[in-house]
């Protein structure tokens, strides 16, 4: 299973080893597919085809079923995400406080649509459903950073911090 190019062999191997550890950890555990996919995505940043194939072979689960699960849950991604993942909360509390205007501003400033990633791979934009920080509405999360009480005019300044 080592379909790696020689220049980055060690790097790829390290991730593969970690994946093997994850699969071993869950061997014999019932209903382990979702936890395995979670951890695999943590390792690779998304769920590329060869990773799905490994999981399918090792866990004896058909590829079709794995694909079905990945596409059912919004947290799993078949595409690489940006270095900074912007999540604009569109929960009710945020919506009432104008979260859609914030989202529009991000779209405009980044030139991408929801679900898209900027060409340089720096930012990807997602609309999410309630991060449970309704007291701070409207809320945006950029990776682990939470920004609350935002105004559309502050979007540009925030983006600058990551550029």
């Amino acid at each position: 299973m080592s379909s790696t190019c020689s220049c980055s062999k060690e790097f790829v191997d390290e991730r593969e080893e970690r994946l093997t550890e994850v699969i071993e950890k869950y061997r014999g555990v019932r209903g382990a597919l979702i936890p395995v996919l979670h951890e695999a995505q943590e390792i690779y940043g998304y769920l590329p085809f060869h990773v799905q194939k490994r999981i399918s072979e090792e866990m004896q689960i058909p590829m079709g079923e794995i694909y079905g699960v990945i596409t059912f849950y919004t947290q799993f991604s078949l595409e690489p995400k940006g270095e900074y993942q912007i999540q604009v909360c569109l929960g009710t509390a945020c919506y009432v406080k104008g979260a859609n205007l914030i989202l529009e501003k991000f779209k405009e400033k980044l030139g991408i649509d929801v679900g898209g990633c900027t060409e340089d791979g720096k930012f990807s934009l997602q609309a999410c459903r309630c991060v449970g920080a309704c007291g701070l509405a409207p809320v945006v999360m950029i990776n682990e950073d939470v920004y609350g009480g935002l105004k559309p005019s502050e979007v540009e300044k925030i983006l600058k911090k990551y550029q």
Partner: protein
Amino acid sequence: MQIYRAHALVCRGTGCSSHKAEEIFNELERQLQDKKLTNEVKVVTAGCLGLCKSGPNLVIYPEGAIYSGLQVEDVEEIVTEHLLKGRIVKRLLFGDTEADAGIKSLDDVGFFKRQKRIALRNCGVINPESIDEYLAFDGYKALTKVLTEMEPAEVIDVLKKSQLRGRGGAGFPTGTKWEFAAKAESKQKYVCCNADEGDPGAFMDRSILEGDPHSLVEAMAIAGYAVGADKGFIYIRAEYPIAVKRLRLAIEQAKEYGLLGENILNTGFNFDLEIRLGAGAFVCGEETALLTSIEGKRGEPRPRPPFPAVKGLWGQPTLLNNVETYANVPPIILNGPDWFTQIGTERSKGTKVFAVGGNINNTGLVEIPMGTTLREVIYEIGGGIPNGKEFKAAQTGGPSGGCIPASHIDTPIDYDTLVELGAMMGSGGLIIMDEDTCMVDIARFFLEFTVDESCGKCPPCRIGTKRMLEILSRITEGRGEEGDIEKLETLAKNIKAAALCGLGQTAPNPVLSTLRYFRDEYEAHVRDKKCPAGACKSLLDYVIDAEICKSCGICAKNCPVDAIEGEKKKGPFVIIQEKCIKCGTCVEKCPFDAISAS
């Protein structure tokens, strides 16, 4: 054990964490070291107090002084003045304590006075990462009592007598649910917890998980004993990293102390807990879908019966409750059912935690006795509506719920009154909306949510909600047609009758409920192409106030479609309505606030 003369509790819930609570915590420790107070004052990580808006929050005992909205620079002043010299720093105290000269205890502050904290009893009071603190607050006492003094049937009897109803949405009697699971015969049974709090605008469970994870662990072990299960699963949202971490820690600590695992407290009772992360699917809050997801599959619901209590996880009898329901169990066991039934209304006993958000001054988390009126929640606890606006409606129950209009503000809130009003208790999201909120747009927002989150298994939900959204979108965009409202009503009725699961059946509720109270708004959109609340952009006219306009031309320069005409310094500019695409850029750019939409 060391005795301290003061305790400083720093809220480290999600809200406060994003307000730099960690920096406050570190600075506090540093300042205490500087002033050589570390032997006298103890800094504690605490869970959510509910005052999320004014975070980061710090409470100093024994005075019970709540400091809120802190900056790192304020910490030194608090340490020198309050902790060293004993003088409370009044300017930093939480809102309504300020006016008063004296210091009040937590229970006397307006925000807390009307509350009764049962499910949230330990949130913001103990360090959620320490089992010892939980033990000191009667933690695991209920489990001990159950295992050493009570038969499983007695436990269920206590719960039935308490009349506790499920806090996750529908309000099914918890004791009866436990009884079903206990009576089901099988070698293997499961106890599960729904911590997949998916309703937008709800974060009650998050705060309990972050602020008092042991109460859930304890209650699930009690449930395991009562129904005869030795294995439990907690299904929790992956979007709640702090909650997941603290829950993991709580399980480890409980195992270490022999309160979880094999032969608990030497009684021969075994119970083990496992955490399963959700992956962002709203439908997994539905019980059959949740169990399917724990099994590692697509979280699609299945028809009931058989109910999970008979045939649940991997086909075995399974008890499933939500976080807040479980959090009520230990106090009921300890204080008895009569204590619990004294609180609340005739048919809804106890308290309910609400996540209050939207257009209200004190956004945050409140726990109130059932039967409290909306007016008390908004004006006495919530501090009223900001900017002097009028209260218009409150939305409960998220995408499955409905709204309570201002005319019903004095209705006592409980399961049954909410259903009568066409809303529902739901999990406890309470979104307050002011006069600027368009009810048609809110209905459209919820339908958009439902369409997004429909799992796609049954056509009434998959296709029906999509058609409803299309109609609502065209109404809010000014393309509504005569007969659209009636079409919405017919679709709603059919979806309610035919959808497979609870989420599908309740998906039309936001539309039905807004139609019931705000039909005139729908009609204004359809017939007059006007949005009375001034929220639907496509129905607004942007106008430049000729008296304020300084004819600087900035608006015209920024207009993407050249819809603004005029000459610099030669009288006010004018927006050509036919060309205007209502993007709002001019409003934002005008340095004199001369442009408004109406």
